């Protein structure tokens, strides 16, 4: 029975990884670039929203949209600074490295906004459910539910709507999409804004279950989101969802067996194994095979 309880806890916890991984995956899927500053821009969004909330003292109903707005703004800032000026092929590495630099800047600003090491965070008043001998935390149930809904909406939007076609066209080949008259710059900016909104929701849910923010939250987001995305599959929305759950599940079991230190060890070990066995991720495209088949076919 305790294994079932641990599995449930792990999966529920993993759903927050899923949400962050979805944001990563969206950006990677459209631009084929990794935004290392993603977690930090979410932290900045949270810090700015908390700062405003401190000044104005408004209720949680206004707090949530404030978080989303600040998260998308800081994400848009990262796009404008690190990604928009380097939209050539050679710019792939440049934008990753510059996003790493911006990470430092964003973390500094967040530290200025929230000078205390830890800062309390408004939590949702949701009770715990009992089901036989099993316990479910209400806020975590909400978390997995929202993660599922958002990945389903994103999946439908990307694969079933006309905006999705444009998004995937840009992802396939930005230059060719430009030839069709598509404003790729605008598509990229919108992608970052949507990723900011998703990340904002994820950050809010995670922090409200923990009731506190620490300056390490940005790094935590980037690390877990990136690993969950790479496990699930690069640029695969469904993969990001399952990757997060799988990561949460394995972390919970291994840290229960071998002690809490194993949480981080698990994260990196899984990443290593996946990268060796299946570099494109479990549900992503097999990148090497894909490239080869594209060159072969004439």
């Amino acid at each position, binding site marked *: 029975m305790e294994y079932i309880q641990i599995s449930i806890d792990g999966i529920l916890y993993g759903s927050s990884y899923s949400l962050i991984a979805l944001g990563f995956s969206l950006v990677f899927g459209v631009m084929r670039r990794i935004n290392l500053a993603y977690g930090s821009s979410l932290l900045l969004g949270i810090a700015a929203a908390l700062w405003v909330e401190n000044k104005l003292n408004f209720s949680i109903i206004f707090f949530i949209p404030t978080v989303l707005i600040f998260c998308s703004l800081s994400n848009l800032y990262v796009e404008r600074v690190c990604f928009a000026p380097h939209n050539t092929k050679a710019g792939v590495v440049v934008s990753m490295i510059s996003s790493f630099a911006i990470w430092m800047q964003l973390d500094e600003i967040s530290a200025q906004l929230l000078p205390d090491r830890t800062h309390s965070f408004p939590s949702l008043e949701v009770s715990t459910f009992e089901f036989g001998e099993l316990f479910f935390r209400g806020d975590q149930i909400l978390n997995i539910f929202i993660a599922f809904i958002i990945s389903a909406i994103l999946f439908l939007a990307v694969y079933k709507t*006309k905006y999705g*076609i*444009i998004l*995937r*066209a840009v*992802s*396939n*080949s930005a*230059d*060719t*999409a*430009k*030839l*069709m*008259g*598509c*404003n790729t710059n605008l598509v990229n900016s919108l992608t970052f804004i949507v990723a900011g909104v998703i990340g904002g929701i994820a950050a809010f849910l995670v922090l409200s279950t923990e009731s506190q923010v620490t300056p390490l939250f940005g790094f935590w987001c980037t690390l877990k989101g990136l690993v969950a995305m790479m496990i699930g599959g690069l640029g695969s929305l469904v993969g990001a969802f399952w990757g997060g759950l799988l990561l949460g599940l394995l972390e919970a079991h291994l840290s229960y067996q071998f002690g809490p230190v194993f949480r981080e060890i698990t994260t990196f070990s899984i990443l290593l194994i996946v990268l060796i066995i299946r570099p494109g991720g479990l549900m992503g495209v097999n990148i090497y095979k894909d490239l080869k*088949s*594209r060159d072969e*076919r*004439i």
Partner: protein
Amino acid sequence: MEEKKILEVEGLETSYDMIKALKGVSISAITGKLTCILGPNGAGKSTLLFTLAGILNPDRGKVIFEGEDITNQQTSNLVEKGLALVPENRLIFPHLTVQENLLAGAYARLAKEREIVEQDISEMYARFPVLKERSSQLGGTMSGGEQQMLAVARALMSKPKLLLMDEPSVGLAPLIVGEIFSIIKQLNEEGISIVLVEQNASKALEIGDYFYLLDQGKQIFGGSREAILKENIIKKAYLGESAG
């Protein structure tokens, strides 16, 4: 007969960073005619088309489309004005289905005229039956010839007045090349003005009305088919002066 020029290019100069790829090219395309731009590798043919389509910005010179100066305009504007480019190596979207590729081609109209776009897709299927068979197949899984047809159909989805085609024959089997060229000829007969860039000079000579010859970023000949056949200039351009 008065001939209207759909496209006029005056003294166009374009460079990639430090390298000047076009050193003053002046061409014009007549409405409803098929204009071919020939020349060896590195002559600047593709650069010329990219500049016309607004992907590259020229350093100097003017591009006039239907009497309007379109130099330095954004590609998205040009597509709406009726200029479409079929890029070299087709560059279809490999992970989109054939149908989605066509929808992406109608990008500018997608939001407003969804139903008309659907009709246009059925028209494309009537014109290229092979695309209908493959409509739900991923673009990247088709053969080169089919991909080329898809690329042409996708460009036609933007309802162009002037179609720019960059080496449609490259990498295709001779039989397929013939098929593609007959499609080009047919489109031209239906009233679409075409600027065709080709390395396959003999094929281009069969269907073109007007010819320009580029070499090392400069234009070395311009004129009708009769003129180009008389001057034997193609041999000179491809094989060097002594061959002439």
